[in-house]
């Protein structure tokens, strides 16, 4: 079957848009790791919780996920903050496998709470504009994808401003760069860590609210999002904000291209292949600092 260069171009544009939402999701993971060296293996689960919150607010109050993402991000912030204060803070300086098991048990609980409360069936939001497309010349791009991508870009920009302009943001970066130093100058590192985890959770919350416009949610999607977020973050560089954004776009586009050139069912082989390659050639990731 022959495909025109135009078909490929259209796929790449969509891949870029999807990639922007991926980036936002991955930002949450990278922020947490970059600051406190904790790997959040319950990342996808938090995403799924956020997606359910968006479904509920739409079903009960008719709120568009684009608006609901603000309260949802706030709820996830509180959840992340609380989780860090109660559980994760005790696991900052333990070996990775202990963090892994801790987050895994949190993940098991979250997924199954979703299953018990929301049931196993896929759920989504029925927006009136869900199936509309923008038409630019020959190019057909669906509206929801554009909106979701725009939302993701705005939030990513805000996050960047937070870390570069605000006092708290700068303090968090200081604590990340030099833990002992931060303690010496009298920063409340525990509080900063909790805020960081909250921000990471808020990012994935916002990403979840945006993603529900594109995808139906069911509890067991979570594992896939966790894996996806990890792939992106490792490719971009674990702990690097720019890396997460670049990684998200790269995966979004490469999935689209691979789907076109290969059998679509093989496209995640491409992502994992890319991941293995990056790990071997540049283990710190494209934008990570060398260890």
């Amino acid at each position: 079957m022959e495909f025109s260069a135009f078909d490929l171009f259209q796929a790449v544009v969509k891949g870029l848009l999807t990639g922007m939402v991926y980036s936002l999701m991955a930002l949450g993971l990278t922020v947490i790791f970059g600051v406190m060296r904790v790997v959040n293996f319950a990342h996808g689960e938090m995403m799924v919780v956020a997606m359910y919150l968006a479904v509920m607010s739409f079903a009960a109050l008719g709120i568009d996920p684009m608006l609901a993402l603000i309260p949802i991000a706030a709820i996830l912030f509180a959840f992340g903050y609380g989780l860090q204060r109660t559980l994760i803070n005790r696991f900052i300086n333990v070996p990775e496998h202990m963090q892994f098991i801790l987050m895994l048990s949190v993940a098991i609980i979250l997924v199954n709470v979703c299953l018990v409360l929301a049931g196993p069936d896929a759920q989504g939001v029925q927006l009136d504009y869900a199936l509309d497309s923008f038409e630019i010349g020959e190019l057909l791009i669906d509206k929801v994808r554009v909106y979701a991508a725009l939302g993701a870009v705005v939030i990513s920009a805000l996050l960047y401003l937070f870390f570069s302009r605000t006092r708290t943001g700068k303090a968090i970066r200081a604590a990340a760069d030099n833990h002992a130093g931060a303690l010496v100058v009298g920063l409340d590192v525990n509080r900063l860590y909790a805020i960081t985890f909250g921000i990471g959770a808020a990012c994935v919350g916002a990403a979840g609210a945006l993603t529900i416009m594109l995808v139906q949610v069911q509890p067991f999607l979570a594992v896939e999002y966790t894996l996806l977020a990890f792939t992106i973050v490792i490719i971009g560089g674990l702990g690097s904000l720019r890396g997460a954004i670049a990684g998200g776009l790269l995966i979004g586009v490469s999935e689209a291209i691979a789907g076109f050139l290969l059998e679509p069912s093989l496209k995640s082989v491409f992502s994992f292949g890319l991941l293995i390659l990056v790990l071997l050639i540049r283990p710190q990731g494209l934008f990570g600092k060398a260890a």
Partner: protein
Amino acid sequence: MAIIERLFGGVPRRALVGLAMLAAVLLLAPFVVSPFVVTVILLMFYFAYVGQAWNIMMGFAGQLSLGHSLYIGLGAYAAAALYMKAGIGPWAGIFLAIALAMAVGGIIGYLGFRFAITGVYFALLTIAFAEFFRILFDHIDWLGASAGYYLKVENRQENDPFNLRGSPTMFYYIMFGLVVLAFGLCRWLLTGRLGHYWLAIREDPEAAQATGIEVFRYKMMAVLLSSGMTALGGVFIAFYNNNLYPEQIFSMGRSIELLLGPIIGGLGTLFGPILGSALLVLVGEIMTDLTEGSQLAGLKQIFYGLVVLLIVLFLPGGVWPWLARLCGFDRDGERK
């Protein structure tokens, strides 16, 4: 006799007696308990065995693998394909299974260690490879692709241990044998030079390198041993379940369930994988019973998750070290 000395030297008499009694109980159990209990204990054996194999890599040599389902899958498919395509029985097939798993494990280890990938990054490398192979096997039509690969079920009337065709009781004794062998092997390795090197590498790879230990070589040995042993677990799965699906055999869930046992039981200890696996299977069964009346599917897993969480919070070193201290068994050179 040197072997006996190495295996049993320094173990308190009480512990030896306890061990002998446990072995005797397990040997006799199938005569007494119901077939249901036999399959449950069999599941414990399986997890104890693969947990022990995983423990060599992580518990002894400090290399975190989150993709051990890869070796299970390779072992399972290798032995099943030989049996179905060439009529070669599993006892011969295990050699291919082991060789294949060791080859792939060796490549992953080589790449990982040569390129100095450690910690979380190494763990993710193992996941990436496992996922890679899952999707690959999903597309191998010769082995049924994602539609699954079925082994012919035959000789059901009589147990045929040479072809691993038979009842759960037969598998029970085979798995029991494997658990004992793996336990003995690990004990033997740990008390030898290799074990000391591994522990040195686990505690501080740089210091180990500085004292002249060939870190790369011993890490590779751990990976090869661990992947080869895990492949045997895969052969068991293939011939016990008689059907293989890449989606299930290479799944990340399988990797995770097999490492929970050793971590909950006590990482780097010999009894950890056994105790941890037994405990988790038991917790699973108890939770199933407790939530039986409820129509809420998922409730069991919530409680299961809570139990794991509590153990991690309150016994971060695992259950066995704590239990051993309680019983006064902790003089046998294991990780304290």
